[in-house]
């Protein structure tokens, strides 16, 4: 598969997570290797999220201002992968949501997550290692109960891939 060469709808993105309660996260190098990442992007590992939030990098800058100097300076620094706050329709028995809940309870489990975006033929993957926090349920009436959590990626541990 090559890179998708179309403007993609938001619906085309899917979130996957490594299975099992004690996963071994991919190495930083493998996060950019198609074969390693695509092994995670299978139906059993799909997380039933409502929408994929913005993914990629945060802005990162160090600002300096010196008294008496006419201009301050903004120095770009290495950008961390962005944290993702995710909402999923809550099924208390969903295997992957239970793993997410376990990760949040533990707090120190590193797991590889994969976002795939496809035009139906070709796929691009964004993979990162992260930890889950802030797992909570919102059961406001007039809709399904929502399961919300935040994935905080580890610094530098992300990559893009596709099969050329």
């Amino acid at each position, binding site marked *: 598969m090559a890179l998708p060469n179309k403007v993609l709808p*938001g*619906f*085309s*993105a*899917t*979130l996957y997570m490594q299975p099992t309660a004690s996963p071994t996260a991919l190495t930083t190098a493998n996060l950019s290797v198609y074969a390693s990442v695509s092994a995670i992007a299978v*139906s059993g590992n*799909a997380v*039933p*999220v*409502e*929408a*994929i939030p913005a993914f990629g990098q945060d802005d990162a800058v160090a600002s300096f201002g010196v008294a008496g100097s006419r201009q301050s300076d903004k120095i770009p620094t290495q950008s961390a992968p962005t944290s993702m706050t995710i909402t999923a*329709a809550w*099924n208390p028995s*969903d295997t992957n949501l239970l793993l997410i809940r376990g990760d949040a309870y533990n707090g120190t489990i590193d797991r590889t997550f994969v976002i795939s975006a*496809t035009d139906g033929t070709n796929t691009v993957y964004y993979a990162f290692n992260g930890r889950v926090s802030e797992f909570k349920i919102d059961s406001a*009436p*007039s*809709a*399904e109960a929502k399961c919300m959590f935040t994935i905080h990626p580890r610094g530098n541990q992300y990559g893009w891939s596709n099969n050329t």
Partner: protein
Amino acid sequence: MATQQNVNQYAKAIQAQLTSIVTPVPVYANFNRNFATEPKFITWHLRNVHQPVYAGQYQSNKGIDRPIFQISVFSTTMEDNFQISNTILQSLHGYSGLFGGATYGFQISKADVVWLYNGYDNEINLYTIHMDCTIDIPT
């Protein structure tokens, strides 16, 4: 992940639930010229069946269904009309539990009834009251 619910099951459950509430008043899924023979009766119409679909390539990534069925009460007297409608309101509004009886029923989290309007149809000489009932169905 959530499967798409079966609307045929909805229809059977609505028919059974309304019948159990207002018996012996007949309940019909369509109007069907019942006014010619029945002094009072109820019809219902199902609409807004929709489970929101969420991101990704899996068809089963959906939310819950909250369909609405409209209940139309017809009778030859205004008194009957309001009495039957009140019976439905008392029974359905806020109801939580098995919806549709033992044979066709399924669990609903809540039924929410909105009284739309009442009126009189001069063509058929019947009083009418229309209500909307939204049901929240775990999926």
